[in-house]
C-alpha cells in the first residue's frame, strides 16, 4: 500500500510557485518549464493555484521581511507530505541581495528546504534536474526536514 502511495507521489508532484521577493528572473524560468519546449507535464508535474492542492513549493527570491510571514503561512497551509525547492541564488542564500537591510537571506531561514538550485537565474534544465533529485529522495520517503 505504501509502495503504491510512493509511486503515485513520484508520478504526480503538483507544484505551487511562490515569489518571496525575486527579481522575476527566476519566475520566468519556472514558467518556462510549462512551455512546449520543456513541458514538465510529461512527468505529471502540474502548476496549481492553491497551496492546499500542492505537494512541492517552488520558492524564488530572497524572502523579504514582509514576505516571511506569508511564506510561512503558505507552507503551513500545504497538506503533508510536502517538499520545498529553493530556486535561484537568492532563495538559496540571498544572492545579490545578501546582507540587505530588508531581506532574510534565503528561504531556509523561514521554512525547511529539501533541494537548493543555485543560479541567477538557474536554467530550466537545472530546475528539472533539481526536481528529479527531489523525487529520488522521495523514494526513500523523507518528508520535510526529518
Amino acid at each position, binding site marked *: 500500500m505504501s509502495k503504491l502511495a510512493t509511486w503515485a*507521489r513520484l508520478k504526480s508532484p503538483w507544484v505551487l510557485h511562490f515569489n518571496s521577493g525575486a527579481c522575476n528572473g527566476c519566475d520566468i524560468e519556472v514558467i518556462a518549464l510549462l512551455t512546449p519546449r520543456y513541458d514538465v*507535464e510529461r512527468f*505529471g508535474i502540474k502548476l496549481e493555484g492553491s497551496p492546499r*492542492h500542492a505537494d512541492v513549493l517552488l520558492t524564488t527570491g530572497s524572502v523579504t521581511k514582509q514576505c516571511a510571514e506569508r511564506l510561512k503561512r503558505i507552507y503551513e497551509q500545504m*497538506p503533508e*507530505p510536502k517538499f520545498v525547492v529553493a530556486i535561484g541564488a537568492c532563495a538559496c542564500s540571498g544572492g545579490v541581495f545578501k546582507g540587505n537591510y530588508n531581506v532574510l537571506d534565503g528561504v531556509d531561514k523561514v521554512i525547511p528546504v529539501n533541494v537548493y538550485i543555485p543560479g541567477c537565474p538557474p536554467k530550466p534544465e537545472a530546475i528539472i534536474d533539481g526536481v528529479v533529485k527531489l523525487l529520488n529522495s522521495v523514494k526513500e520517503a523523507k518528508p520535510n526536514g526529518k
Partner: protein
Amino acid sequence: MVVDLWFVFRVLVFPGFTFIFFFTMFCDWMERKIEARMQNRVGPAFTGPAGILQPFADIIKLLSKEDIIPSGAKRNVFRLAPILAFSFVVFAFSFLPIDGSAVIPNSSFAGDLIFVMALITIANFFLFLSGWASSNPYGDIGATRVLTQFLGYDIPLTLLALAPAFIAGSLTISVIAANQYLPFAILAPWAFVLFIVTLQAELEKDPFDIPHAESEVIGGLETEFGGGKLAFLRLTRDVQIVFGAALVVELFLGGPYGPVFFGLPELWYFLWFVLKILAVVLITEYVTCLFARLRIDQVLSGNWKVLLPLSVLSLALTVAVATWIYPLVM
C-alpha cells in the same frame, strides 16, 4: 440468488461503478493528451505506457495526502458535499443505457430524462455547497459562479433536450436512443450544435470555465480542498464530462445502438457506446482548446440573450418540421 449476484455485478463492476470509474480515467488522460498536443506539447508521457496511468497516480496521491479541514469551514458539509456530488453524478449515469440496457436493469421509466437532468442539477448544487462551506473568499466566489452559471444554462439545456424527446415522442432515454435509425444529430442538426455549446457551459469548460478561472479565483470552489476531498471534487468533474458526452450520445447519436456484425449484440452496443463517447469528448476538448475564456458578464448575457432565445427557436423549428421528420424515424 443468481439474479441478485448478477444485479450486484452489474452495479459494481460492469457496466456500473468500476467501468464508469476506469472509463472516466481514460477520458481524462485522453483530454490531457489532446490538450497537450494542441499546444504543441507531449502531455503525460512517463506514467505507464504513454502516460495512461497519470489520472490514477493523481487520484491515489491525493487520497494518500493529509486531510485538512480549515478551522473556519462548516465541518460536516465540507466533508460530505464532495462525496455526495460524486455519488449523484454516478447515480445519474446508471440510468443511461450503456450496453443496450441501463446499469440497473429495467430501471428506465417514463420521464427519466427529466429525472436524470434533475440529478445532475443536485450534484452541481452539492459542488456549490462544498465551495460555500469552505469559508474562503475564493471558494465563495467560485461557488456563486457555479450556481449563477449552472442555473442559467440549465434552462436552455433542458429545452434543447426536449427536441429529440419530441421527435421520438417520449421522455424516456432508452426509447429516444432506440428510435434513432437515423441519428437525431442529422435530423435536427440545429439542436445538436446548440446542445454541444450549452453542454460546454454546463461542464464549465472553456470558453465558459469562469468558475475555476485560475487567474481570477485561484482554484474556485476547490481552493480550500486538499487530499481525498479534492480527489472527489476532481472525479466529480471528470465523471460529469463523460456523463455530458454520454447524454449527447443517447439523445443525438443513437445511444449504444449500431450495426451488430456477429456474436453478442451487447458487446457491439457497448463498443459503439464507448466509441461515440470518445468522439464527443474529442469534439468538446477541441472546442476547449480553440477558445479563450469569456468574462463572467459575457457568459451570463450570452446565456440569457443568445442561447435561451436560440434554444426556444430551435424547439419551435423542431416542432415545425416534425411532420417531415416523422417518416424518417422508425
